[in-house]
């Protein structure tokens, strides 16, 4: 009898809606098979490696140079995106002008456009005889085959993150917040810095953080414009790809484990930070 009446704590109340078992079954199967199981492949590959071997691979000078290239490119892209993403979100929410809907739709282009297409297009545009390259190179600005091109491609693919996280928060900001600041005598600049920006800050940091994480892993958009010179314009994703093509699976896996750990940690950090901020604004609820 006791076995029959045994219930796990969360089963104590009768479920009103149907489909718990089915949806739980599908979800768990999918998450385990598609998302989690493959990660064990990486573990399997790393198991056969000693710690010193692992350390040697991930600190190989060419690999370290690729970290520097990737991180600095992603950082520059994130800063560009923070500034222009904020500007675009502001303009799209606060002003009315002809073509606004078109501009709004255009914001999602980098997410909708395949990265390889973005890659060859940017590479062509900024090559020495491309539309932009022709204009910029006489000025001494070399974009293709330099870190500038890498940052540009990263910024292109990740700009929607900032726009689309800041936009809804700005939309929800009630007019009274502006009005209260103005009624208390604040000029536009001061009011923006002290009242509006703090409201947008969590969204802006989250969006910029997501853009940064995305840029760290970007591959298709970058490799065409980067030139991929070892020690100079070689990104970490390409490093992994090159090792795979050389059948150096252990090396590829070691580097991939670093990339994976960094992205997951960053994502976790963004989530925790955001949670802390939201608790303050909503009084612990």
């Amino acid at each position, binding site marked *: 009898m006791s076995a029959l009446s045994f219930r796990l704590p969360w089963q104590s109340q009768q479920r009103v809606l149907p489909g718990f078992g089915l949806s739980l079954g599908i979800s768990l199967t999918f998450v385990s098979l598609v998302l989690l199981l493959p990660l064990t492949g990486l573990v399997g590959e790393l198991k056969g490696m000693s710690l010193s071997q692992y350390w040697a691979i991930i600190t190989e000078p060419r690999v370290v140079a690729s970290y520097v290239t990737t991180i600095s490119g992603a950082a520059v892209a994130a800063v560009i995106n923070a500034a222009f993403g904020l500007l675009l979100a502001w303009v799209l929410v606060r002003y009315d002008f002809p073509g606004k809907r078109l501009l709004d739709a255009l914001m999602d282009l980098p997410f909708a456009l395949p*990265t390889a297409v973005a890659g060859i297009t940017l590479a062509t545009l900024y090559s020495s005889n491309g539309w932009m390259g022709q204009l910029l190179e006489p000025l001494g600005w070399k974009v293709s085959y330099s870190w500038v091109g890498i940052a540009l491609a990263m910024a292109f693919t990740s700009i929607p993150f900032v726009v689309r996280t800041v936009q809804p928060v700005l939309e929800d900001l009630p007019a009274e917040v502006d009005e209260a600041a103005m009624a208390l005598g604040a000029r536009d600049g001061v009011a923006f810095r002290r009242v509006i920006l703090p409201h947008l800050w969590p969204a802006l940091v989250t969006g910029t953080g997501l853009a940064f994480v995305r840029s760290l892993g970007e591959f298709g958009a970058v490799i065409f414009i980067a030139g991929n010179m070892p020690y100079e314009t070689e990104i970490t994703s390409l490093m992994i790809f090159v090792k795979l093509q050389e059948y150096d699976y252990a090396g590829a896996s070691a580097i991939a484990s670093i990339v994976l750990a960094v992205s997951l940690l960053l994502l976790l950090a963004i989530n925790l930070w955001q949670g802390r901020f939201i608790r303050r604004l909503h009084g612990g609820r």
Partner: protein
Amino acid sequence: MQRIGDARWVRYSLISAAVAFSALFLLLPLVAIFAQAFASGWSTFIANVTEHYTLAAIGLTVLVTILTIPVNLAFGVALAWLVTRFAFPGRRLLQTLIDIPFAISPVVAGLVYLMLYGRNGWIGGWLDSHDIQLMFAWPGILMVTIFVTSPFVARELIPLMQAQGSREEEAAVTLGAKGFTLFRRVTLPNIRWALLYGVILTNARAVGEFGAVSVVSGAIRGETNTLPLHVQLLYQDYNTVGAFASAALLALIALFTLAAKALLEWRVSRQEVAA
């Protein structure tokens, strides 16, 4: 009503800056794709996209996309139903787990699949001894595509279904609705636009996935070459016009995605006004 930044000169300079940036940074590349694709005329474009290997790449991409969508649709709906309609331990964890594909570099995603299902992997080795090859073949491409596109449907549905709550479904249960009828008659009409948008995003990403697919594909022309990989091959062969002809096809799908999104948002906002 007056708001911060409403002064005419502030407004005009900010709008100009935003429009200039978007034109240069977003619109110009889009224009360039089509300009390059049609650089040698319409007939060359047609010849390029009807070329044998291009057609094969289109076929493979369509196959992978058609198989990916139903899988992720089923998963997305099941997961959204689970986490928005029931409370159970591990719910938050499950919601976090589905974001993994967003955080992982596509190359790393391809790599983990290759390590598991490739000849050296513990599953791949067993499959190999039974003469089944998943990696460097279309099933591998399908598997990584499902992986990278898995969050889209769920991510569109969860916030909406959370906001709508389960009152309507509970009312339907008291009226005797059961199981799938309940979902079809009560839930589905409320979520259909989000569901459609989730499918459109899944479609766009499935068609365009590059990094993960390039790791597991092997890029054999006419066999395991998807359209984005084909673009890369042509571009590296210095066949720029050919590469951009295929790129233009992919860009068209992107434009369709943007248009569909704008249309769906317009519909939803009109429904909200009417309500």
